């Protein structure tokens, strides 16, 4: 047994520990819950009660062997001495990824490694990621970018958009964060002020910053143009590639153009971060799966939750390990991709209304904040 395998086995033994074991009748555990969200539209709805658990995607892999990959994102690290909880959770995710058996072929880190783009935060994240010895690929989040406009991030992780082919699948990493309109120059903001506004999810100053951009759309078009139309494409992005809730940039502003480019392909899966919650959507042949954060869960937006989404459970704010986690994604030799949310401590889905993160909020009416509508802007993280 080689050293890596021994380490994986030890880690797995330690992390799985005692406690509840898989319920054989369901094939799921309470600790690690499979979100088989929909087999297909109404058929999925019909199986809502007992088969709700995996985003099962029919991909044409032919005779290619199946494989796994892992997603971790939204660690939102502060310097270690400011917030240790986020560090603990990021470490746990990295260890669990490394302990996967059989091992993942690669890890995608889906952005927002840092909270305020501080080089100290990005260096810390880079160090923690070294726990994972697998191949790693990275896309940026807005929190990584707007202190120095990506200088430190690109130095550590390279080009923010990329593509590679792996066992019959074309993988694409999109940069959905760096093309925000310039809201800082005219206002003479400092880099910290610029970052502060970007880091405020419900702020209005940074505007509709999430986008792919004309140049990258052309790049995407070139990237997929030679790919067979019946072969799978998996596209990673920090933001969802559809319109969920623009006031919190739960979208990219040019999502229609992205959809248009990918329309000819029979099997496209978008895996995204940013929203810190369980999400599932289908538009045409593209399916989108929202990933958990390791840091904290966002509440569902007041409108726009896709009808195909089965909402996650209400998180307990007293438990920092609740409502957060990472994902195992498996592409089987039978041509299916399954997403397995690894949420710590609790079931992923709110099966009953009283436990559902969506149903819990049906009685609230919200309006957007007020203090950042005036100049000079209040609350700009001076």
């Amino acid at each position, binding site marked *: 047994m080689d050293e890596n395998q021994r380490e994986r086995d030890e880690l797995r033994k330690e992390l799985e520990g005692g406690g509840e074991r898989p319920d054989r009748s369901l094939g799921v555990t309470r600790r690690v819950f499979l979100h088989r969200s929909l087999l297909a539209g109404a058929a999925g709805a019909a199986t809502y009660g007992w088969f709700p658990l995996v985003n099962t995607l029919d991909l044409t892999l032919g005779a290619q062997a199946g494989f796994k990959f892992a997603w971790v994102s939204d660690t939102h690290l*502060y310097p270690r001495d*400011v*917030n240790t*909880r986020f560090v603990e959770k990021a470490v746990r995710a990295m260890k669990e990824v490394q302990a996967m058996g059989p091992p993942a072929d690669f890890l995608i880190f889906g952005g927002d490694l840092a*909270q305020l783009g501080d080089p100290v935060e990005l260096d810390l994240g880079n160090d923690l990621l070294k726990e994972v010895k697998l191949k790693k690929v990275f896309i940026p989040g807005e929190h990584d970018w707007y202190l120095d406009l990506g200088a430190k991030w690109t130095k550590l992780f390279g080009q923010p958009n990329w593509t590679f082919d792996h066992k019959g699948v074309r993988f694409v990493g999109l940069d959905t964060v760096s093309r925000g309109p310039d809201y800082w120059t005219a206002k003479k903001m400092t880099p910290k002020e610029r970052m502060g506004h970007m880091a*405020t*999810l*419900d*702020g209005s100053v940074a505007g509709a910053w999430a986008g792919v951009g004309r140049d990258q759309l052309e790049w995407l078009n070139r990237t997929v143009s030679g790919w067979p139309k019946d072969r799978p494409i998996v596209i990673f992005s920090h933001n969802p590639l559809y319109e969920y809730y623009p*006031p*919190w940039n739960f979208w990219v502003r040019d999502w229609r153009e992205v959809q248009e480019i990918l329309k000819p392909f029979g099997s496209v899966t978008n895996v995204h971060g940013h929203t810190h919650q369980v999400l599932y959507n289908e538009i045409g042949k593209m399916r989108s799966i929202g990933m958990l954060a390791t840091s*904290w*869960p*966002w*509440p569902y*937006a*007041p409108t726009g939750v896709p009808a195909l989404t089965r909402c996650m459970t209400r998180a*307990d*704010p*007293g438990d*920092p390990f609740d409502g957060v986690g990472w994902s195992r994604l498996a592409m089987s030799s039978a041509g299916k991709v399954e997403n397995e949310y690894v949420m710590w401590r609790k079931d992923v889905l709110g099966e009953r209304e*009283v436990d559902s993160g969506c149903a*819990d*909020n049906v*009685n*609230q*009416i*919200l*309006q*957007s*904040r*007020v*203090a*950042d509508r005036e100049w000079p802007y*209040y*609350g700009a*993280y*001076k």
Partner: protein
Amino acid sequence: MKLTRIGLVALGATLAVLVLTTSRAAAHKAKHTPEQLKVFEEIFMEQVKVGDLLFHGDEATQKKLDVRLSRTGMACAMCHPFASDVHPHEFPKFQEQIAEFATLRDMINWCIEKPNEGERIDPDSKAMKALEAYVYWSNKGSSLDPGRH
């Protein structure tokens, strides 16, 4: 004669009370001017803005009000954008995390102390009233639903 004098004093006192009561009542019945309403609104919205700043972790406002709402870098708005998922209209209620019948102010202090690891604030302080103003304003239009879990 003596009785008449006492009677006059009593009558005078009664009249004085009546005059005073009537004039106070008249003050209450005076129609509100647009200027008055504007002032009321401004006073309220100023507190909403202060609460918004506190809710979003503004350092200067915390310093001014001598409060420390977080030691983790986290601000209230990071889990509650637009003050969502606060549900001010559901208080008072049994609050699971506190394991007690609780008001919104109790829960705000719990969030400050536990997830944010900050310092509990006086429930009657200016900071608490401002936070309350922002949270209620953000949820304006939500129906009262006290006790809902």
